[in-house]
């Protein structure tokens, strides 16, 4: 690719994102956890909608999802379904988490766990292990960002330089404006991704079929490759059980940045309103996936499935659209990596270093801002440049663990009798099974490893909770006044809290 336009457009996007991120601070001091961590709990419904939407739509939507369509077919739509179920999760749990944060001063997920079970050790454990999955996720997104810069520059920006450039840009505005920068930049990135996805998708359909209807694409797929239109897909590996258990496990993976986003809302009602409309954003996936289907008959010999949209764009689309695609893909990867880096820094400072080093809130606030630098340049950057083959495995194990924290949330929202030891035992049992069924015997019987983990985790959690002491009654009452504001259903009658 010889034109300078794709790189110029992509770098223009980066410059705009930086300006927006830096201006988000608006003269406020960012040295408190409340301000840097959760934007002073101030975000309105539109910003929150775009914050959560752009955060959940990663480079996967622009690269991985079309790649799945190209190699497997309609199986990729499990992602759109589970993202919508995550909106249901946000609608129900988000307002309660916001109230916990507002009333009890939590700024992280691990703080809430630590408080509910009166166990800083459990909070620190949750923070540390969630950090593994979060960092792996941020590394994968950073690799995607660097790859985009490499392609858009025609190879002039090597991967290592792309990694450093992208992380440096994020570091500047994340340090300066914290969660406010994430909110504002994600809002911009969310709108950009939606426009780019539909512009690229429709243009690609027009170049492939001569019209703007997706029907031409799918009629050809139906005639020539109908196995792409059903499960288990062209690869034969997306069974009903894997589809179902992947959705359920993903739905119950309460990742820490999502909690931080909920706690950043201006009110509980704001979260509910944003969550209500959140599924509408996932129309962003459809046009990108259609380009993946076009690739089935246009680029049959592609070596890497996840480059299908980029390859098709470079061969058939005008350079301006290629540049916009670069900007959109970069926006997707940056908007997903920055909340994870922010959340790791926030949680390690608040839930691990503060209790261990007995730091004041003021010092912890400053530490959280500074900690993004070693996390980015000593952990994320070397891993992204080295691209270890086991990274996806680390991510899978990390996400599998995220779902194993489910008992902690059951005890927070549904079951007052849950005990600290019950939660710990459930997490450990579930985590071991998830690791074993991810690495040694991947997804037995076509069922997601995290689902197997939950099947052991939940009975262990219940059994150990019933034989070990519950948390102090006044703590449980405090949480369940929010989790169950109208009391409990108890053996067919209502009981007040």
């Amino acid at each position: 690719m010889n034109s300078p336009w794709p790189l110029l457009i992509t770098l223009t996007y980066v410059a705009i994102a930086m300006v927006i991120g830096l201006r988000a601070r608006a003269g406020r001091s960012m040295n408190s956890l409340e301000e840097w961590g959760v934007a002073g709990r101030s975000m309105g419904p539109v910003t929150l909608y775009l914050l959560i939407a752009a955060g959940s739509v990663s480079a996967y939507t622009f690269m991985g999802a079309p790649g799945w369509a190209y190699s497997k077919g309609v199986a990729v739509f499990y992602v759109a379904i589970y993202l919508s179920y995550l909106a249901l999760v946000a609608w129900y749990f988000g307002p309660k988490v916001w109230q916990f944060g507002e009333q009890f001063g939590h700024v992280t997920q691990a703080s809430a766990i630590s408080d509910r079970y009166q166990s800083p050790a459990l909070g620190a454990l949750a923070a540390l292990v969630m950090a593994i999955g979060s960092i792996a996720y941020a590394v994968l997104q950073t690799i995607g960002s660097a790859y985009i810069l490499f392609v858009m520059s025609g190879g002039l920006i090597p991967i290592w330089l792309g990694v450093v450039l992208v992380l440096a840009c994020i570091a500047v505005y994340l340090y300066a404006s914290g969660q406010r920068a994430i909110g504002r930049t994600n809002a911009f990135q969310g709108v950009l991704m939606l426009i780019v996805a539909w512009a690229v998708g429709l243009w690609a359909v027009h170049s492939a079929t001569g019209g703007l209807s997706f029907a031409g694409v799918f009629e050809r797929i139906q005639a020539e490759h109908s196995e792409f239109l059903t499960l288990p897909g062209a690869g034969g590996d997306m069974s009903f059980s894997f589809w179902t258990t992947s959705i359920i496990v993903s739905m119950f993976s309460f990742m820490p940045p999502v909690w931080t986003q909920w706690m950043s809302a201006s009110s509980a009602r704001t979260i509910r309103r944003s969550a209500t409309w959140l599924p509408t954003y996932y129309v962003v996936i459809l046009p990108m996936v259609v380009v993946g289907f076009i690739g089935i008959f246009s680029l049959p010999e592609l070596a890497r499935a996840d480059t299908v949209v980029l390859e098709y764009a470079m061969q058939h689309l005008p350079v301006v659209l290629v540049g916009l695609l670069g900007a959109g893909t970069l926006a997707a990867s940056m908007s997903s990596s920055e909340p994870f880096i922010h959340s790791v820094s926030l949680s390690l400072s608040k839930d691990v270093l503060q209790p261990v080093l007995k730091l004041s809130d003021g010092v912890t606030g400053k530490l959280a801002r500074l900690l993004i630098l070693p996390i980015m340049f000593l952990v994320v950057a070397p891993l992204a440049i080295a691209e270890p083959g086991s990274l996806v495995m680390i991510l899978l194990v990390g996400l599998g663990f995220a779902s194993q924290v489910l008992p902690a949330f059951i005890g927070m929202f549904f079951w007052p009798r849950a005990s600290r030891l019950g939660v710990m035992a459930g997490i450990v049992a579930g985590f071991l099974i998830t690791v074993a069924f991810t690495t040694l015997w991947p997804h037995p019987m076509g069922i997601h490893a995290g689902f197997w983990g939950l099947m052991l985790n939940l009975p262990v959690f219940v059994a150990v909770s019933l034989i070990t002491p519950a948390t102090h009654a006044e703590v449980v009452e405090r949480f369940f006044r929010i989790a169950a504001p109208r009391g409990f259903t108890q053996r067919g009658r209502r009981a007040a809290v």
Partner: protein
Amino acid sequence: MERLLVLPTSRAGWGLFIAFVVLVLAGTWPVIGWVNRATLVMGLPLLVVWSYLVIFACVVVMLIGNRIVERDDHE
């Protein structure tokens, strides 16, 4: 601790709970098996159309939920 589980406490709450369960069932097996056919509806694969029906049904259920929550005036 005498209390057992947090469950809906009103008829509207139970209705909403059932709607949430139905939505999750609609997007998973066995329901997803019933729409797993290589046919096109409005030019799109049936599974894709079904996926987006489930997605927009989530919006409708949450809109109804908002009315219930705001009518009852509690968070």
